[in-house]
């Protein structure tokens, strides 16, 4: 597995992006997630839970020992995302993708979704090169 890579521009990116973002986690917690660090993981989409109150992207990533670890990436409600063009098919199972997320502070394999880039170059969410 690729060790999650902390982006050098993480703090700046996060500060810039999330000040402008709608209140994605408005009534549930966002406090367990890093507020100033963005990491990247690459793996295979297992499931996109396009559900209320929040959506979750489940992605399986190989760790440094070659073991598969399932990550949970929390995103907005399907109501809000649906109005932005996101659909249940946006993250098809089996697709390879690189994800950017604000990780959980305790190191658990989960975080707040920021953006994704698929193998074919298509991006979802916030993705600045």
């Amino acid at each position: 597995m690729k060790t999650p890579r902390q982006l050098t521009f993480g703090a700046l990116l996060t500060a810039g992006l999330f000040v402008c973002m709608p209140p994605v986690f408005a009534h549930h917690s966002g406090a367990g997630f890093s507020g100033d660090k963005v990491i990247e993981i690459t793996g295979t989409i297992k499931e996109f839970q396009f559900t209320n109150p929040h959506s979750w992207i489940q992605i399986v990533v190989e760790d440094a020992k070659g073991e598969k670890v399932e990550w949970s990436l929390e995103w907005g409600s399907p109501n809000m995302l649906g109005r932005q063009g996101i659909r249940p098919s946006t993250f098809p199972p089996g697709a390879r993708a690189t994800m950017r997320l604000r990780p959980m502070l305790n190191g658990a394999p989960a975080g707040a979704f920021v953006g994704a880039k698929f193998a074919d170059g298509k991006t979802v969410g916030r993705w600045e090169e």
Partner: protein
Amino acid sequence: MKRPNPLQTNVRAVLIGIFSVLLLPAPGFGQGEQAPGGTSDKLPDWSGTWSMVGGTVFDRATQTGEGGAISAGVRSHPPYNAEWEAIYKTHLSLRDKNLFPDTISNCGVPAGFPRHFNLPDLYEFVVRPEQVWVLTENGPNVLRIYTDGRKHLADQWETYTGDSVGRWEGDTLVFTTVALKGYRDKDVILDRTGLVLSDKSHATTRIRKINPTTIEVQMTIEDPKALTKPWVVTKQFRKQPAGTRIYDYGCAENNRNPVDVATGKTLTLGPDGKPLDKN
């Protein structure tokens, strides 16, 4: 053959026209239409979908600290008395440690009033001659404001959203809300900083469309238990593009952020349903 009298023909046509109109179904009183006498001469058009402007800090006009309602250091400054300022400070401290639970995080109770006007996702303001309904996609929640001349019940018990009755002053809906639970049972908050009111709180609210794309809600909140003077909070709602749809918000569908009742901590559940943040 007798030729038809043009005058008689015209009278007949007029009579047919009048009867045809009388036979049509009675018109409904939708938004922007004439209301029955005693309610309003003309109801305003608040149709469409609306989104609250800004984040979910309830009183943004007095906000200090950077970030949103769950950001450490962020707070509002209501005119609390010393006792309730101390309660708020306790909540703020718990919020900073992710230990102040959001009352709606377990998906079982309404947001309540006045938090009804402090929710993400979309709103609808449905104007009828006898009632106005403020519908929130988040929740969902319904605030019914009776405008048919009824009064508050003298023996109304306290509920999450209370009892709202009002009247039209031109294009402005003015209503009072009473019989609120407030934080009595610790299941109604105003925002995630930890703002709360008592079960003696009540409010006078004025709603008006201040321009074609903005509805303004001004609440004057009074609370003899918690506040030293009336607290005026203004929220604005921006019109969304025509055709915008509102969807289900079934909070219990896949709630992976329940509150741990033992600690008040909002958890994050993994795919197996076990907390990822319990160390």
